[in-house]
């Protein structure tokens, strides 16, 4: 680089830095919305949870090292193993890859931040507060103790009195806000915020994987959120969803839990596969073999994983044909998994692999994951699963898949992206020793535990008997477990030492081809000084001068003259410039909202209903403060985006980022609604003690209100939207829409009047359906009122009509689901 371009790059950095930087000091920690800062804090938080979960694992191994151990009693042991599973699955595995994604994705896609920076901050704080609550509960001795999948009737109030189970149900639901928020962000970012020319078939492979995983989160988490909600309702208000004597069925929980739980395994595995697909070609000095096949395999695996949930329920008495469906899909998923494995082996074959530390961990993954995958095929066979179910064979299998298939690749990823994360190159060499300790410790622990399972050792036993034949295996497994822990401890020490005190590194030390290596290291707050134009999957290989061009502002938005946070949005498929997105500045609102949300979720643990409703009001208020800050009170017209292109700001397009975010949030909401209807149909078809003693009489008032309300709500908002775009008064349409929503709420209210919430599972289900309709009509109504206020304040014009489109989407959804839900509630009465 000559002096002149360097000066140009420096000038641009000095112009961009004040716009994008965090607030100074501790205030900056609470107000930051920057993906690099949030990502770093998220990584540290999730790593801390891994250490906490690891300590609990060591306590478990200490307890089981000798027969009839008096190390801890069953009450404590139950909390320890429940929290070990809960922490590792919900507080480490998912948050850790989300954290890595939050950090890496913008730079990798050649954009300046994620689509919704404040949502990222809110999700992070929800996670941190929720994780803290869970840890405090453990230290206080009131941690969940029903196992990480909380099966009723064990977890019902009759068998699990006290607040332990409530903390799990409400705490985990609260923490899942973070996962859902991150998923919405990732989907919209990957689809709309990329370098120009980065078409869908040129996406970095990691971004493809994360897009798939994010959609999986949006579709897999809602069934469990619904399950947690109705189990909590049963515990708090005796609504008998899972009580057979009142028409409930505990198998409903298992269906809802595993509808989440099995895709969850792939939600955890696929990011690791994305990391491998990103790293392996670089380590092999080549390109990924079969890019299209790998993308197809990832998508196939994601969807097929939703047809597997019953394979966790093979021993529940389901008819053979049902078992055979799920056994067939369980074998089918091995095919796309195999395609990925063969693509990786082929990539190694065609390249010239270097055995750097990340590669060592990937080799560890290959050995371990293939073994875990094969035992997975074994338990997919129904007769074998009948024997191995709930034994240590399954415990060993899942640890092979989760540690081998997830933790090893994530460690590879941390070492690989360490220069981007820290700006330093690896100096201390404890990593290799740590790797071999982990490998020896891991296989010494879990390979042996397969045998313990085959010898009949049940999972979750708090002690073993002398003479059972399991003592030697468990002693060896415990010793190996501590070796494993020392290995992981060394990894943490090595990464910390290299992150804090190693020498500064240079950009792109691995000679990788993707854009996250085009930024200065560590990645600056604005990620890219200008939005690049790319024409291949490996732009840095094809154009080694690209980092300099980006730094000199030769891409889009390379002249920050408007003194605000701007980035470029592109068309979904073709990645053509579409509009300029104005990003929010630092804000305390996400943190404040996370605190108030935590109160809303945790107040019911102590039956603090008024506090819950008050904090729900607080959340609604803060959400309005949040949304009010965006937008503009004047039309800006087309703006200079650089390279001779002019584009509108996001406030002046018909489908702004908020519309896209709402669309994918409503996808998750629709899955929750679908799960609710599934639960209703399941209970009606399968549960004992149906039909219920009394069926709701629909009458004529309720259905008439619902039909009229739906038409009025949807028609009204359409009229208002049209009026805004034509510059006319939107008030009649908005008032009509509000009246329609009120009618929908009134229609739902008739269901409450015609049933008794705790009489039968039928009544309880109808209350939830009606409650869902009332809640959504309320939310849509609040949004319509908010839109009115925005119109009065001058935020809306014929050009700036995006807000109306967002509200229209929510009102349409509320009307549609209310009509469907209430129709399902009244259907038996009509047929009777």
């Amino acid at each position, binding site marked *: 680089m000559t002096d002149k371009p360097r000066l140009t790059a420096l000038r641009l950095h000095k112009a961009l830095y004040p716009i994008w930087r965090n607030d100074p000091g501790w205030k900056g920690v609470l107000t930051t919305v920057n993906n690099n800062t949030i990502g770093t804090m998220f990584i540290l938080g999730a790593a801390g949870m891994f250490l906490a979960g690891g300590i609990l694992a060591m306590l478990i191994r200490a307890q089981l090292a000798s027969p009839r151990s008096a190390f801890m009693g069953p009450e404590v042991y139950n909390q320890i193993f429940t929290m070990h599973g809960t922490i590792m699955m919900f507080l480490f595995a998912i948050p850790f890859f989300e954290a890595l994604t939050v950090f890496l994705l913008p730079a990798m896609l050649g954009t300046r931040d994620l689509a919704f920076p404040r949502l990222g901050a809110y999700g992070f704080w929800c996670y941190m507060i929720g994780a803290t609550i869970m840890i405090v509960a453990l230290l206080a001795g009131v941690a969940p103790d029903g196992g990480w999948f909380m099966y009723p009737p064990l977890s019902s109030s009759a068998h699990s009195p006290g607040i332990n189970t409530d903390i799990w149900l409400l705490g985990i639901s609260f923490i899942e806000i973070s996962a859902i928020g991150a998923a919405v962000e990732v989907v919209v970012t990957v689809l709309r915020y990329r370098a120009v020319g980065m078409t869908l*078939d040129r996406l970095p492979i990691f971004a493809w994987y994360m897009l798939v995983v994010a959609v999986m989160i949006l579709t897999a988490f809602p069934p469990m959120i619904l399950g947690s909600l109705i189990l909590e309702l049963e515990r708090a208000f005796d609504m008998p969803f899972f009580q057979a004597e009142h028409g409930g069925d505990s198998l409903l929980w298992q269906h809802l839990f595993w509808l989440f739980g099995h895709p969850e395994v792939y939600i955890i595995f696929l990011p690791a596969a994305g990391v491998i697909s990103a790293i392996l070609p670089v380590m092999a000095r080549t390109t990924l073999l079969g890019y*299209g096949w790998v993308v197809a395999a990832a*998508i*196939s695996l994601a969807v097929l994983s939703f047809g597997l949930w019953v394979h966790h329920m093979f021993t529940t008495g389901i008819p053979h*044909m049902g078992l*055979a*469906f799920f056994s*067939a899909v369980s074998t089918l998923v091995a095919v796309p998994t195999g395609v990925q494995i063969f693509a990786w082996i082929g990539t190694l074959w065609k390249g010239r692999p270097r055995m750097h530390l990340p590669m060592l961990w990937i080799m560890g993954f290959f050995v371990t994951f293939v073994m875990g995958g094969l035992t997975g095929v074994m338990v997919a066979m129904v007769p074998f699963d009948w024997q191995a179910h709930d034994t240590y064979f399954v415990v060993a299998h899942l640890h092979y898949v989760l540690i081998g298939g997830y933790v090893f690749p994530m460690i590879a990823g941390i070492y690989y992206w360490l220069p981007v994360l820290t700006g330093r190159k690896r100096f201390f060499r404890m990593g290799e020793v740590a790797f071999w300790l982990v490998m020896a410790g891991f296989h010494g622990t879990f390979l042996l535990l397969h045998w313990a399972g085959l010898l009949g050792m049940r999972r979750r036993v708090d002690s073993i008997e002398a003479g059972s034949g399991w003592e030697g295996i468990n002693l060896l497994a415990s010793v190996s477990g501590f070796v494993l822990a020392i290995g992981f401890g060394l990894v943490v020490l090595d990464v910390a030492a290299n992150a804090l005190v190693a020498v500064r590194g240079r950009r792109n030390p691995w000679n990788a081809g993707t854009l996250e290596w085009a930024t200065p290291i560590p990645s600056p707050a604005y990620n890219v000084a200008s939005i690049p134009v790319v024409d291949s999957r490996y732009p840095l290989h094809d154009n080694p001068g690209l980092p300099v061009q980006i730094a000199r502002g030769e891409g889009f938005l390379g002249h920050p003259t408007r003194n605000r946070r701007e980035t470029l949005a592109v068309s979904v*498929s073709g990645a053509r410039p579409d509009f300029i997105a104005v990003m929010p500045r630092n804000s305390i609102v996400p943190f404040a909202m996370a605190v108030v949300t935590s109160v809303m979720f945790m107040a019911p643990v102590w039956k603090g209903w008024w506090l819950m409703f008050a904090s729900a009001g607080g959340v609604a208020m803060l959400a309005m403060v949040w949304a009010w800050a965006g937008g503009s009170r004047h039309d800006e017209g087309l703006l200079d985006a650089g390279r001779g292109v002019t584009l509108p700001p996001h406030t002046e397009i018909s489908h702004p980022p908020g519309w896209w975010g709402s669309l994918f949030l409503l996808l998750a909401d629709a899955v929750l609604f679908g799960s609710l209807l599934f639960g209703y149909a399941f209970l009606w*078809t399968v549960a004992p003690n149906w039909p219920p003693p009394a069926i709701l009489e629909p009458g004529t008032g309720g259905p008439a209100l619902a039909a009229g309300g739906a038409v009025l709500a949807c028609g009204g908002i359409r009229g208002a939207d049209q009026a805004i775009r034509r510059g006319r008064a939107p008030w009649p349409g908005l008032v009509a829409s509000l009246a329609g929503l009120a009618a929908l709420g009134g229609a739902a209210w008739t269901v409450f009047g015609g049933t008794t919430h705790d009489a039968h599972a039928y009544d309880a289900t109808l209350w939830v359906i009606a409650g869902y309709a009332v809640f959504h009509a309320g939310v849509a109504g609040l949004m319509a009122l908010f839109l009115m206020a925005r119109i009065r304040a001058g935020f809306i014009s014929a050009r700036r009509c995006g807000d109306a489109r967002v509200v229209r989407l929510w009102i349409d959804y509320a009307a549609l689901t209310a009509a469907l839900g209430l129709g399902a509630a009244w259907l038996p009465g009509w047929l009777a």
Partner: protein
Amino acid sequence: MTDILRLSLPLSVWIAAFSAVYGLEGIVCSDHWAAAGLSLGQGRAALLVAWAAAIAVQVVLLAGLRMPRFASSLPGVQRIAAILAAVALVATVWSLLPVAATSLCL
């Protein structure tokens, strides 16, 4: 978004068909089926028809996605869409094969 639809449609149809057939099997094996005066033989026939319909839809999707009219302008996306449509067809045949091969309500 059209390309996203091309990529996601066949497997989404598979999961919908898979869930529907599983649900139908639940209904056939429930007391409601017998109460409606229907036999298990008719239940098996209904399941076979549902399976055949699911396969037919997948064949139409596979053929449709290969037609120039519905093809993606991005060659890479077009190839991935074709692979996924084939995967969905195979998944439909394989995962619902038990309707013809196993006992119904045992």
